[in-house]
Each structure stands twice: as structure tokens, then as C-alpha cells.
């Protein structure tokens, strides 16, 4: 190729670059969405934006997983009502994942505690420097340490306490290391704990282990339609540690990421079993004598829906708004953070899916709702993805908000008739 062509191509690329930059400034998010939907970027560069909560006034609280300028919660306002959050205020000296609004309080979690802040009539935090600590001393041993939170309508708060292990092996993530009999981690982790939402300084003894056998839950929500808790479990990694039964490709596609309806006593089956979405059954884990086919006969509940492996569901939201078309009403949106351990296959996820629901039951299969967060057509290493969906929230006008904890972008997805 001669110089002239090179220069032409360079010029053209610069033009394209200029065009895409100006598009970005116009706040179009360039997501792939169903017909009639539009996504705009309403905030940018917030940091590691995890879960989000929107007030009835349309303001947003964002929980950060890493302190930014020493603060872990960002309060976003759209004071000039142009649809973009141009005003940012930060508070809270702890990082974490969980944030939720209920009954005049803002609840937020670090990786070992849960705090709350009293709100004024405009749902603004009255004393940002004086949170009340309602729960403390929760297990944080570095793995699956985030504490997701949600409240019901009866004064209880539900907290995920993830297992500090992949599959409760004697030696975590070590080839062919067997599972510890009667996995002791389950006493203080690997489940959902329930506490009083209105009592200070609680710890394990003050709450109950509401559900167990959940390796790690990040996305969870209270379904108002059937007044129940729903959770998304992050399935186990590295079945290939047992190469007799699993090659790399099999391990890349198993186990399913799973959705459960959770009532008191629900058991997700971890670490003794996992859900195989191809055989449609619970399989005994190889750490506990499984061979990839033996069905698990112990106590465990079935998921209500199974998704491809390792996609990391980080956000769950039941849609109660009136803006979206009828089929979305009461359905579930799930933000998949995106996989990292599907090599040698391409990575998967990095999108938001929709599951239609009625009266607490899925009425159809899941479908990709919003895609394109990664900004590339194929992710082979997780860093290839520019943005990673994490938290979900519904605005007062029925729009859907999605957070990205990679670049700190907030997306607003709306439907235009």
C-alpha cells in the first residue's frame, strides 16, 4: 500500500474518531436495544459504580466499590431537568456494593457492615457524616465479600453473605482437592441472612440464616407482586480441577448461573451440588464424589431459571413501571457483569437480559434486552470490555437505569412510543 492511501485511511479514521467523539458527547449510549427503546448516558466517570437506587424525585444514590476522593457513595441530581445528572455530591467513608431506599431511609453496605441514613421529605440524606450502623461483623474473607441488600415490606433487611471459597475444598481452587465434609463455611456464609431493618448494632446472633447453599449472590430484589425475595447465584468456577470428568470446554459451559425464588429455608445446594442446564438437573459436585453425571439427591431446591455459565449476574430488578410495553410489566431485568472463566471459549455476558414474569413465575425464556456495553464484538480477556453492567434501578418515570463498575457510567434506558 502506498503512502497516499495510508494518509487517506488515516484521515478517514480521524474523521470517524471525531464523529464518534461528538456522538459520545450527545449522550447516546450506542446500546443495542429492542425496537422503540433508547439509551442515554446520564453520568460518567463515577468510579466503581456498583448498586444504585433512585428516589421518587429522580435523584440517584450510587454505591462505589472503591473510594473516590475518600468517599464511597455518590448522590446524583439533575437540577436543570435536562435528563442528565450534572450535580454530584459524595459522602460515606466506606466502599461496598449494596444500596437501597425504603421507608424514609437510605441503606448502604460495606463488605462487613450495613448502615442507614435518615432522609428528609425530598429523600436527601440529612446527616451524611452520621450513618447509623445497623449490622456489623459480617464475614469478609476477601472472596465473594460484597454484601448486597434488599428490604421487604415487613421491616426486615436481607443481606447476602458470600462464601469465602469456590467449592469448599480442603484446599481452595486446588486441582482434585476434595470438599470439606459438612462444609463449615455455611454456618456464617454462603447464604442470605435476615435482620431487623430498624435495630442498631446487630450481628449474626440477632438475625437468622434465611436461606443457605448460595455460593455468592450479588443481584437480588424483592418481587412486590408475590411479596418474595428473588436472588441470582454466581455458580462455581473451575470444574476443570477434576480433569477426569471435565475438560476445559465443559468447564467453560458449566454450571448454570441460576435464579431462585427464596423463602425461609430455601437451599441453593452449594457446595454439594450445582445445576446443569443441559441435563436439567442438580449434579453432585466432583469435590463430593460427583462425576459430572451423578444426580444430587440431597436437600436442595431447583432454580426457577438457568442461564449460561460464568456470566456473573450482578443486578436483579422486577419492573413495576408503566413506561415500557405491557410484556415488561412485573418481569425481571438482570445485569450480567460478564464472564472471565470461559476460556478457551469467548467470554459471555456483559449485557442486561429480560425474563417475563407473572405472579412470581417466569412465563417465557430469557432474552438479551440491552447489549453493547463491552464496546467490542468479542471479549476474550475481561479487560477487553469497556463497560460492565452491574446495578439496576427503576426511575419514577419508569425508565431503567444501569450502572457500570468499570468506568463508572450510568445508563438510562427509556421507551418512546
Amino acid at each position, binding site marked *: 500500500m502506498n503512502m497516499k492511501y495510508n494518509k487517506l485511511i488515516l484521515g478517514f479514521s480521524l474523521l470517524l474518531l471525531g464523529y464518534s467523539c461528538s456522538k459520545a458527547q450527545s449522550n447516546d449510549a450506542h446500546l443495542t436495544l429492542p425496537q422503540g427503546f433508547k439509551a442515554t448516558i446520564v453520568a460518567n466517570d463515577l468510579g466503581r459504580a456498583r448498586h444504585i437506587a433512585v428516589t421518587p424525585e429522580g435523584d440517584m444514590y450510587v454505591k462505589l*466499590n*472503591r473510594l473516590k476522593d475518600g468517599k464511597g457513595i455518590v448522590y446524583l441530581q439533575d437540577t436543570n431537568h435536562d435528563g442528565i445528572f450534572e450535580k454530584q455530591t459524595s459522602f460515606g467513608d466506606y466502599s461496598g456494593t449494596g444500596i437501597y431506599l425504603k421507608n424514609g431511609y437510605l441503606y448502604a453496605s460495606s463488605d462487613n457492615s450495613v448502615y442507614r441514613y435518615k432522609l428528609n421529605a425530598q429523600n436527601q440524606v440529612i446527616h451524611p457524616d452520621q450513618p447509623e450502623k445497623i449490622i456489623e461483623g459480617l464475614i469478609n474473607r*476477601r*472472596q465473594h*465479600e460484597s454484601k448486597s441488600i434488599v428490604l421487604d415490606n415487613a421491616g426486615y433487611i436481607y443481606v447476602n453473605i458470600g462464601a469465602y471459597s469456590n467449592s469448599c475444598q480442603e*484446599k*481452595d*481452587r*486446588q*486441582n482434585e482437592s476434595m470438599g470439606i465434609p459438612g462444609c463449615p463455611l455455611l454456618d456464617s456464609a454462603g447464604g442470605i441472612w435476615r435482620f431487623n431493618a430498624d435495630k442498631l448494632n446487630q450481628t449474626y446472633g440477632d438475625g437468622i440464616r434465611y436461606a443457605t447453599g448460595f455460593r455468592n449472590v450479588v443481584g437480588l430484589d424483592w418481587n412486590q407482586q408475590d411479596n418474595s425475595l428473588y436472588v441470582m447465584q454466581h455458580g462455581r468456577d*473451575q470444574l*476443570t480441577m477434576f480433569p477426569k470428568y471435565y475438560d*476445559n470446554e465443559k468447564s467453560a459451559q458449566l454450571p448454570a448461573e441460576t435464579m431462585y425464588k427464596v423463602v425461609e429455608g430455601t437451599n441453593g445446594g452449594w457446595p454439594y451440588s450445582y445445576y446443569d442446564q443441559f441435563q436439567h438437573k442438580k449434579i453432585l459436585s466432583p469435590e463430593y464424589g460427583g462425576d459430572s453425571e451423578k444426580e444430587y439427591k440431597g436437600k436442595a431446591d431447583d432454580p426457577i431459571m438457568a442461564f449460561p455459565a460464568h456470566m456473573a449476574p450482578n443486578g436483579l430488578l422486577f419492573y413495576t413501571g408503566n413506561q415500557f410495553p405491557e410484556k415488561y410489566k412485573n418481569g425481571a431485568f438482570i445485569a450480567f457483569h460478564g464472564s*472471565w*472463566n470461559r*476460556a478457551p471459549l469467548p467470554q459471555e455476558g456483559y449485557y442486561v437480559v429480560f425474563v417475563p414474569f407473572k405472579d412470581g413465575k417466569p412465563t417465557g425464556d430469557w432474552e438479551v434486552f440491552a447489549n453493547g456495553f463491552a464496546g467490542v464484538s468479542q471479549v*476474550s*480477556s*475481561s*479487560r*477487553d470490555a469497556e463497560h460492565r453492567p452491574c446495578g439496576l434501578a427503576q426511575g419514577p418515570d419508569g425508565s431503567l437505569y444501569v450502572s457500570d463498575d*468499570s468506568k463508572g457510567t450510568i445508563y438510562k434506558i427509556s421507551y418512546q412510543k
Partner: protein
Amino acid sequence: MKYLLLLFAVSIAALSFSSFSEKKVVSFQQKSTPMTRGKVIYTQYCLPCHQADGGGVLHLNPPLIKTSYVLGSKVTLVEILTKGLNKGVEIDGDSYTNPMPAQNLTDQQVADVLTFVRNSFGNKASAVSAAEVKAIRAKLK
């Protein structure tokens, strides 16, 4: 006819044997540097967590790109590889939490994969020899 068939079978066998051994030679030559051997080991044992680009996974698996771990002490590297590491690692203000399992590799394999990692993903550091690995492992025991 019988003889003809036999001759046919023998020549097929000879042909396939010769092409097989040729392939063997070629692939042996391709894999015969520490970098190419190291890449094979990396792909099998390290890539699932540390990723194809060596960039790791934020908060879970540490990056192997220009970190003090990768470019620094060979003793520490050999120890992490052969004994595992189960404590949080902090790199550029982010913590990485997944435990590193001990790898069951020969001295030569450890040397090759470390040489590969120290000279891939934008890294540039001295090679690691099997003799060095052997000496370090003897002290670690």
C-alpha cells in the same frame, strides 16, 4: 490379490508413519524455545484466571503486566507458583482476592512459564532457568 492388499497396507502405514514423524519434528522445533514452551504451559494452567492478555480480572485475579511481582524477585515468583498464595494482593490500589493454587510443575516447566510471563504482555525481564528454579525450590522445602 492378497499380496497386493498387503503391499497397499504396508505402504499406507509407511506413508502415515513418515508424515507423522515429520509432523513430530516440526512441532518439536516449534515448541523448543522457553517462550513457546512457556506459552503452552501458560495457556493450560494460567490463562483461565490471568486471562489471554495477562491483565487478570479486577478484584479477583491479579494482572501480570509490569507488576513488581512479575518483574521482581525470582524467589518470590517460584514460591508463588509452586507453593500457591492465599492472601490478598494489592496492585495499584485494587485488591485481588482469589487464592492462587500451588502448581504441580517440573523445574523446567516453572522456568519456561516464568520466562514467558516475564517477557510477554509488555514485560521485559531476565529469563528464568531450570537450574535457578531447582536451587530456589531446594531452599523452599
